[in-house]
């Protein structure tokens, strides 16, 4: 039996190149049992390649991947015995029924009794339609069937690559609810790779952000430094107000990762970085005393989108800096 302290997923030094392009730079990642982790990144960031390596579909150039302590490269069967996965587009044999698909796929793992399949089918709410041919299923039903196959037979780690891709709003909510239930009821470790920030925000406390094959963030996203001491306010004459606040040593330079120090319009609030000892109340008092009309003020409410965009901005800046020719190279 796997001891509970063994990571559900452990990636060490994972590197993958496609030709001259490095898709994943040495990547370190550890996910503990029972965690629900979101993996974010733009197209080509390396999310799917990383998950492909975890599932043994893509061969890494370097590094090791262990699932429940078993090396995927050397002990594939043991490593993947407890893994369920779904991919962006759920693919099935359209000419077979949902039930026949489930049986065929489950047979790859080992003997799965009919009762277990029925339980999973009921859980994903497909009992009425599971004997229909998959060719007539809607995208949402295919996604539910994909979840059902991933649940056979009782995985401990669930890897979901774009689970809501192509679903209508109701379908997105439905799938999200299902994932939550699976996580809560079965205590599964869940890894969700997605473009949908709102989805990851609602599902996961911990996120891993990838950019051009690099991991640029890994942690509890609400506790990210990006959100620490950032005040959001609506004030008239924001340029002058910011200058005044700075002279009062209440605000440091506007938070560089937030692009709205001076809002472009009245609908957008300004975001400033408070000095370490200052509070929103101090700032409010100082601005009001100086004759500025403050409509609204408060600490920034963490939003994953803000974190993601700030990380993307930093990554772009770093890339630009790296791309700038050095004096030696210029010479």
């Amino acid at each position: 039996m796997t001891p509970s302290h063994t990571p559900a997923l452990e990636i060490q030094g994972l590197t993958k190149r496609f030709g001259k392009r490095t898709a994943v730079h040495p990547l370190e990642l550890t996910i503990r049992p029972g965690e629900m982790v979101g993996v974010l990144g733009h197209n080509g960031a390396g999310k799917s390649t990383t998950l492909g390596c975890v599932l043994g579909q893509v061969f890494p150039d370097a590094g090791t991947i262990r699932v429940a302590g078993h090396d995927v490269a050397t002990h594939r069967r043991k490593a993947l015995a407890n893994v369920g996965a779904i991919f962006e587009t759920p693919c099935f044999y359209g000419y077979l029924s949902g039930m026949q698909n489930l049986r065929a796929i489950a047979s790859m793992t080992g003997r799965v009794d009919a009762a277990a399949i029925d339980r999973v089918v009921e859980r994903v709410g497909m009992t009425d339609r599971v004997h229909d041919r998959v060719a007539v299923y809607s995208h949402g039903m295919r996604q539910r069937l994909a979840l059902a196959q991933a649940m056979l037979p009782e995985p401990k780690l669930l890897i979901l690559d774009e689970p809501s891709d192509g679903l209508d709003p109701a379908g997105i909510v439905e799938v999200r609810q299902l994932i939550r239930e699976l996580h809560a009821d079965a205590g599964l470790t869940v890894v969700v790779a997605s473009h949908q920030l709102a989805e990851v925000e609602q599902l996961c406390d911990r996120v891993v952000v990838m950019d051009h094959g690099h991991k640029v963030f890994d942690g509890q996203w609400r506790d990210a430094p990006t959100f620490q001491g950032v005040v959001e306010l609506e004030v008239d004459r924001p340029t002058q107000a910011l200058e005044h606040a700075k002279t009062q040593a209440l605000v440091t330079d506007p938070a560089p990762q937030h692009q709205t120090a001076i809002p472009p319009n009245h609908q957008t609030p300004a975001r400033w970085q408070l000095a370490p000892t200052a509070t929103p109340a101090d700032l409010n008092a100082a601005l009001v005393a100086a004759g500025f009309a403050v409509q609204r003020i408060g600490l920034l409410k963490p939003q994953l989108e803000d974190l993601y965009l700030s990380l993307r901005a930093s990554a772009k800046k770093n890339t630009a800096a790296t791309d700038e020719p050095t004096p030696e190279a210029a010479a």
Partner: protein
Amino acid sequence: MIARLFAHEMHKLVARKRSWIGFAAFFALQVAILALLQLPKPKAEIARILSNNGLGFEDHYMGLTLAIVIIAFTFTLLGALYVSLVGGDIVAKEVEEGTMRMLLSRPIRRIDLLAVKFAACCLYTVALVVFLGIISLIFASAYRGGLGRLFIFMPDEGLFASYDTWTGLFRYARSIVCLAYGTTAVVAVSFMFSCFKMKPVSATVLTLSFFLADVILSNLPYFSSIKHWFISQHIGFWVRTYHEHPPWHDIAVSAAVVTAVALSAFAIGAARFCTRDLKT
């Protein structure tokens, strides 16, 4: 587990409409050939060939002889087409449609999956050839009202033989088994191409091109001294079983070449597939 995988693979194969195209095409073709043979001119032509060889029309223009005519003229090209269609699909189609990624997220070794798929292809090929052999005989016998004597004339093979009904039936059954075995080389080559990164239709076209080129080269008069180098010459070893004294040594060599081609194709395909990255 392998047995269970094989059962599911066969289930997938028979549940797919595409797998039945070959059966349906041969069925239709046989009906067409038998219908055309009812016309006076083709019938007279066959009577002329038989009488030129001193054989009676009524005895020899019967089920067994007609069945061989149908198989010899239909399977050479169409058989290759339909088995390579299935072989070309078996891996490449699953990769193209994305189901392969789902299968490979399971704790199964790629080589096991390929072995099961290869075995399913071979079984399909045997089933198709045996089906063709049986329905050819049934249709032709029904059309002529009996099995009759077996007459076979293939000048290129130096083959001219006439057998009574039971000997003919035995030889016919034996040749069908040999034809099925020989055809596994075709499906193995299409399976091999299917394991590479290409579309299913490309695997089928490449297989057909490969075997057509082989047939063309082997029939060029300049290469008659090296005919045995060409695979198609060995795949056709079923014909040689009709000789009054079959050249068993040559037949064994051809069967060995077919086996070697099939296993080599599987090994090459498996080597490529087992080292491939599968990614959308």
